[in-house]
């Protein structure tokens, strides 16, 4: 029995080290963002925390995080809403409305393909289309790309949720005189609402952190999002470390909030594409 307790202590100590390895870089970025340039250069762990870097990136003349944050919020929420609506309608249809197996399977395989294809493949066509459509360098162009990228997650997550709802519920609704649309919107959606919310939040976060398309389809702060703004810091000759860290921390906020709400739905969504072994 004593040996068992000892094992447990060692195990938990080892896991604490892992927790430390994961959290330390995040802590390090927060710490750097609160330092003055002199404190960053000296590498000290003891310093007076200042919010200058945050003020600088949002209101300073050399940064445009106010605009970038607005773009990021517009893009991520639009993508979450569009994916939420289209994804859950399609997922419901495919998993519940008696499509032949080849149709359901075909759509599923197609979605997994998109999920697995390196996104660089779509960059050049989307770039041409965005220019042709006159939406190049606007949030609309980024929304277009992000909706496509996140559709697999949206549909597959919702298919899993709908699979858990007992079939009798819709049947009862239809017998009571509901149309299929009413059965869906009044009976099924309220039941899967927690799942739907988890999906929308996850899509929001994925869109928020996306970089390649946000970079390729924009060129000024009119269309750029936060990750592109952060990457710009690195490419300058004299990197402003404090501001770069402040920007990076702002970029992490949605993720950190999500972790606090962590629930099994989100964990499942993170491994979409993993076919059950």
């Amino acid at each position, binding site marked *: 029995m004593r040996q068992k307790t000892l094992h447990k202590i060692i*195990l938990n100590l080892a*896991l604490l080290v*892992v*927790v430390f390895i994961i*959290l330390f*870089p995040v802590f*390090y*970025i927060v710490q750097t963002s609160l330092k003055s340039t002199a404190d960053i*250069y000296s*590498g000290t762990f003891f310093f007076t925390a200042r919010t200058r870097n945050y003020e600088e990136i949002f209101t300073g003349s050399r940064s445009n995080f106010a605009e970038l944050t607005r773009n990021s919020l517009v893009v991520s929420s639009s993508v979450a809403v569009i994916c939420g609506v*289209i994804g859950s*309608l*399609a997922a419901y*249809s495919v998993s519940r*409305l*008696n*499509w032949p197996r080849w149709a359901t399977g075909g*759509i599923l*395989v*197609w979605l*997994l393909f*998109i999920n*697995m*294809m*390196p996104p*660089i*493949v779509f960059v*050049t*066509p989307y*770039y041409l*289309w965005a*220019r*042709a459509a006159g939406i190049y360098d606007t949030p609309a162009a980024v929304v*277009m790309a992000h*909706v*496509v990228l996140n*559709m697999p997650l949206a549909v597959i997550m919702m298919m899993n949720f709908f699979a858990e709802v007992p079939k009798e519920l819709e049947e009862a609704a239809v017998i009571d005189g509901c*149309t*299929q649309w009413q059965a*869906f919107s009044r009976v099924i959606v309220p039941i899967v609402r927690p799942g739907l919310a988890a999906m929308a939040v996850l899509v929001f976060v994925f869109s*928020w952190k996306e*970089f*390649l398309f946000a*970079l*390729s389809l924009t060129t000024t702060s009119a269309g750029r999002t936060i*990750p592109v703004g952060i990457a710009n810091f*690195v490419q300058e000759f004299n990197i402003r470390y404090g501001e*770069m*860290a402040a920007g*990076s921390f702002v970029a*992490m906020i949605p*993720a*950190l909030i999500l*972790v606090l709400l*962590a629930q099994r739905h989100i*964990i499942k969504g993170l*491994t979409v594409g*993993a*076919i059950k*072994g």
Partner: protein
Amino acid sequence: MAQASLTRPTDMRAKLFGPGSFKYWSVAPLLIILVIFTALPIVQLLQMSVSELEFIDGELVSEFIGLGQLDNLAKDPIVGIAIKNTLVFVVAVVLIETFTGFTLAVAISRTRSFSIVYRSVVIIPLLIPPVAIGTMWSLIYDYNYGLITTILIELGVQHLPLWTADPDLALISVIIVDVWHWTSFMFLIMLAGIESIPPSLLEAARVDGANELRMIRHVILPMMAPTILVAMLLRTILAFKVFDQIFVLTSGGPGTATQVISMHIYKVFSEQFRLGYAAFLSLLVAGFMTIFVAFYFWASRVVRRRLG
């Protein structure tokens, strides 16, 4: 579509507007998006890769060059290096992350009281922007003011490593960051696998006097083999996407030390501005990945049937 054209017009109308029509229009927006934004781009890529494209005064000018991009491919000195770097990167991260992910999953599956804390913390790297992961680690690696430098100086080390600025260490530095980022993904899949092992099996092994290591080797590993195999294949596919952190940490450098395929295509597209050639390379990647993904679907089905 073929079915629809065989049915009489009244049936069509019933399908589209009748009480059962919800089935069709609910899935229509998704299908429209899939066709326009994922099938058409492939057609567009085909078209682009047989052309030389240029913007002149904001107008796209296209000239048909047939298989001319093959010459460009033959003359491209970087593409071979990029493929080699990508392969080294993918093999390294998949092997390491399989090990770290599995170990972490076994360890966390053994905990009770803090389990939820561990699980929440572990998913953080999967949710924060990869660009921010890149800046985080560039601060840690920084030769002048970085964390590692600070620590090594305290320890009295003379020759400080340059990490991302050293051609020999750059790829390794990038791999370390990827392990920090993606171990969690392997962990989540492995944990789901471990949790689906019947507890009675573990109990029986314990009654027979197996210690922890033996239990892992003789019970957990064999039971997990299909999951591990499928997870490795999936991670391989996803690892080919790598771009964001490399862009931030090294931008493919120093020289070509961390040039990977996505990075190379991006540079051809945005720095050299050769749209046709970038499209051609994209098409090659798409072709290769299609074969690989098809193999993944096939393999996971076989694995599920034989071992699952």
